[in-house]
């Protein structure tokens, strides 16, 4: 166990190093220079550009820039090129906003997909199963932005509530219950949208897993013993079918950052995805690189957690 953890930590650190090198190269070798973002702006005289290049070490060779950037990142001094704010603090602020969406979306995904998947596995081939199968294909295939507009039309026309942004503009300082309701209405659509793909995929996965376990010999044995259907499904089958999903807890971590660019920009939600999008538009390299680095760290931590959990849950596995 200890040797496995040690080995995998070393492996992950090496991976992270290569990720940092590749993302740095991708951004810096692409055509176009950040100092030329706005050539028509009269404020960008050659002297200003020169000072800009000096200040952000753009006149150094690439490997020096790389070393300087990661030194700044680990000492927490990286500053955005756009407004000179420390990147980590900017990300921290946006992170809080994204966390709302992430938590509600994850709760929705995990609470909805299990009942749906289990029920369609138990009634395999029935009307419920067939309709949820089709529905989940539909939800996987629908473009997120199109679905967002459909939901906006429906919700705005039927409930007459505000949906864009994080809170109603000019609400002032309302009592807490009104603030909560307002926040909930704004949260509803983006988090439902964030959860749709997850619900569709996860419920299919739950169904497949359930079906596989229900075909096992010990389930037949349980039936033959005269165990009631209920007990067969929920005690014998479900418990074993749940095994792989424990590991998926680790894999939802990266969802904190990626995947919400489009939804956050439709709903004007000031979260991580939108910040990354704005940084890309402004060629704000420190922000792009930092977001990339953090998400790579999250992916690696996620896979690590899922490996360890798998080993803890399933004693047959020896990594």
């Amino acid at each position, binding site marked *: 166990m200890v040797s496995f953890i040690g080995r995998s930590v070393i*492996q992950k650190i*090496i*991976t*992270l190093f*290569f*990720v940092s090198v*590749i*993302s740095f190269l*991708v*951004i810096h*070798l*692409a*055509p*176009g220079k950040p100092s030329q973002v706005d050539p028509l702006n009269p404020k960008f005289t050659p002297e200003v550009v020169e000072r800009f290049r000096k200040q952000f070490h753009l006149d150094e060779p*690439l490997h020096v820039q790389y070393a300087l950037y990661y030194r700044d990142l680990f000492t927490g001094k990286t500053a955005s090129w756009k407004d000179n704010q420390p990147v980590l603090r900017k990300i921290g602020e946006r992170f809080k906003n994204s966390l709302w969406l992430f938590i509600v979306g994850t709760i929705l995904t995990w609470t909805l997909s299990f009942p749906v998947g289990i029920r369609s596995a138990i009634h395999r081939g029935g009307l419920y199963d067939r309709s949820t199968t*089709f529905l989940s*294909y*539909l939800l*996987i*295939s*629908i*473009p*997120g*932005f*199109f679905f967002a*507009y*459909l939901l*906006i*039309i429906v919700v705005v026309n039927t409930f007459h509530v505000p949906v864009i942004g994080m809170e109603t503009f000019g609400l002032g300082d309302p009592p807490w219950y009104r603030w909560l309701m307002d926040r909930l209405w704004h949260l509803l659509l983006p988090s439902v949208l964030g959860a749709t793909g997850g619900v569709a995929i996860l419920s299919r996965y739950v169904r497949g897993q359930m079906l596989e376990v229900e075909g096992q010999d010990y389930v037949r044995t349980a039936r033959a013993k005269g165990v009631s259907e209920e007990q067969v499904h929920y005690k014998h089958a479900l418990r074993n079918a749940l095994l792989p999903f424990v590991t998926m807890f680790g894999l939802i971590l*990266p969802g904190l*950052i*990626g*995947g919400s*660019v*489009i939804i956050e*920009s439709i709903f004007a939600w000031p979260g991580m*995805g939108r910040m*990354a*999008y704005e940084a*890309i*538009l402004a*060629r704000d390299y420190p922000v*792009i690189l930092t*977001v*990339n680095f953090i*998400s*790579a760290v999250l*992916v*690696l931590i996620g896979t690590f957690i899922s490996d360890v959990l798998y080993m803890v849950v399933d004693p047959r596995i020896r990594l």
Partner: protein
Amino acid sequence: MEREMERSVRPEEMEKPLVPKKSRFREICQLLGRNRLAFFGLIIFFLFFFSAFTGRVLTYGTKPVFNPGQVRLQEKLRPPLSLPNLETLRAEEVPMLGRYLFGTDELGRDVFARMMQGAWVSLTVGFVAVGIALIIGIALGGIAGYFGQNLVRMDQILASLGLLLGVGLMAAGRPVSGGALILGGGAYITVTLRWGRRWRKGDKTGWARVFFAGTLSIDTLIMRFVDIMLCFPSFFLILTVVALLPASIYNIMIVIGLTSWEGTTRFVRAEFLSLREQDFVTAARALGVGSGRIIFRHMIPNAVGPVLVSATIGIATAILTEAGLSFLGFGVPPPHATWGNILSDGKSYIFDAPWLTFIPGCAILLVVLSFNLFGEGLRDVLNPKLRKRS
């Protein structure tokens, strides 16, 4: 003829109970016909092909049959199926079919013509991107699966590092030293790969042993590279690269292809690892068949089914990604229509002109759905466990 002759010579063949002969293809078609969802997917798939090709032909050139760029400001935001006001239009501005089949957008452009033009973009992006991903994925996965146990030696790693450094120097504007490194590294690798075997046999001491020591297996190298690539948030990476590169449809295809090969690689590797242990491969090797022939004639045909399934679903994902990118305003430069940017332009008129949102949205949904359904159906059909012996 010869076969019939043989048959007639051996009458005992005729006595045997004959299994009705079905070719593999016929069998697959029949199974697909039974799977209603997959069949539905296949039909939409063909319709999409047809409309993309006709769209390409009819909206291309200087005097296209359907002109997607024709601006008619007096006719803007007409609902679908509405008739044009012939008095205010010049002859060349009248829509081809005599009415606006899908309405007009905020500049009075015919949405039907724009959809036709956009279909081609979606089709090519889907196929080219998946083609690139498949080529990389099959190549890397095949190498990792078939030659995976071979060790990479230290000298080879050094030579390829030299090669990479040379490319970097070339890019940084130092062609002489970069070119020298590329030539040196490339020559070393070719020489050691071709004539290295004989030369390596002698005993080595001290530094030479370190220099020629085997380090990592090829499999480790490739799979760790896959792990590295999987660490990038893919949509964000695509967005970054596309935003930095000049806007063009080809860049989008290449970038989507270059960021979506990891799944195929893992897949092909697993398939190859299990195939190379099977008896028919061993038999082929015992007959003295070369590696190339084993890979291309014996293993790839057996691995192609699952790859085809993942490719079909990959096309769906690529089309969705492209639509998302053009929705955000990246990719194909503006006058050219794609389904994503028709929707993105129409979103400001969502309550006044909902067809500008619904038509492209439903088109993307249908096409992606058909690819997904067809892919899943294909998976069931190609799965030998589900095929019934009739």
